[in-house]
């Protein structure tokens, strides 16, 4: 399936979860927040939230700022 992750196209196996997506990028769930089609996905649900083709995902983290 084709996803749009942080504005970039990404191919992942059908039925992949948010947890699998984070694993794909080697990201620690505790250091990010995830939006699926503009709705925040609670961390507790990463392992059972399945993605579908055409989904728009944003993965954000904290960076330096003032």
């Amino acid at each position, binding site marked *: 399936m084709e996803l749009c*992750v*942080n*504005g*970039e196209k990404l191919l992942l196996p059908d039925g992949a979860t948010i947890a699998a997506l984070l694993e794909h*990028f*080697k*990201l*620690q769930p*505790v*250091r*990010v*927040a995830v*939006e699926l089609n*503009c709705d*925040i996905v*609670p*961390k507790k649900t990463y392992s059972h939230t399945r993605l579908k083709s055409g989904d728009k995902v*944003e*993965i*954000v*983290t*904290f*960076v*330096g*700022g*003032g």
Partner: protein
Amino acid sequence: MASTHLKIGSYELKSRLIVGTGKYSSLELMQQCHQESGAEVVTVAVRRERLVDKNSGRNILDFIDPKKYILLPNTAGCFNAQDVVRVAKLGREMLTDSGYRGADWVKLECLGDTRTLLPEPVGTLEALKILVQDGFQVLVYCSDDVMLCKRIKEAGAAAVMPAGSPIGSGQGVLNPNAIRIILEQLKENDPTYPVIVDAGVGTASDVAAAMELGVDGVLLNTAIAGATDPVKMARAMMLATESGHLAHQAGRIARKLYATASSPWEGRINV
């Protein structure tokens, strides 16, 4: 220590200096500067995770001790209320059950344009109302317009944070009289209501001058991160915050046009 603590929303702070985390040449340097500044609150921005060309897996939070610092997520880089609310919620989500304090507050920044980085008042007020409704304690970056500051306080802001001068400009507090009027009007019958100068200070004397006006704290980033010796400047900022606050409490002498002798006139030998 004559200073009393600063209370913003549910947080009680010993240090009146809030520092940023941006523009440091390394995360190690940032960590050292935070230590020297004595700040308890550090503000962080929310951005897309870099999915390729990652910074060798280093995350800024690995350089901020959750026992020592409270994080203040900000909405820097937002230009409308909708984006502000979205970014604030992402910040809260990241801090929820993270071991860090700070999930329940946010520094609201809604900018007008990229050149001045001045706050956009209509979007700011609109976002504030939504965030307050959603349970956030909101610290609001705004311009030094007293009427706007009053509306922001009325809308439920936990703190009002007028800019001293444009972000990163190092010009100091350009209109101290505006800050004085804001302090008078917002603190009338509510003396502990927090007013913080956010942005624009360039060096220690700017911070001391701001504190001497009677503001409750100063928030800064570039003045430390951009200094030739950031660690030394961080310490200077800590001392300036404290000395300015003490001087305000102490009450300065009136300015007079003519001299007043410090030594007695009586007993001079040359009469």
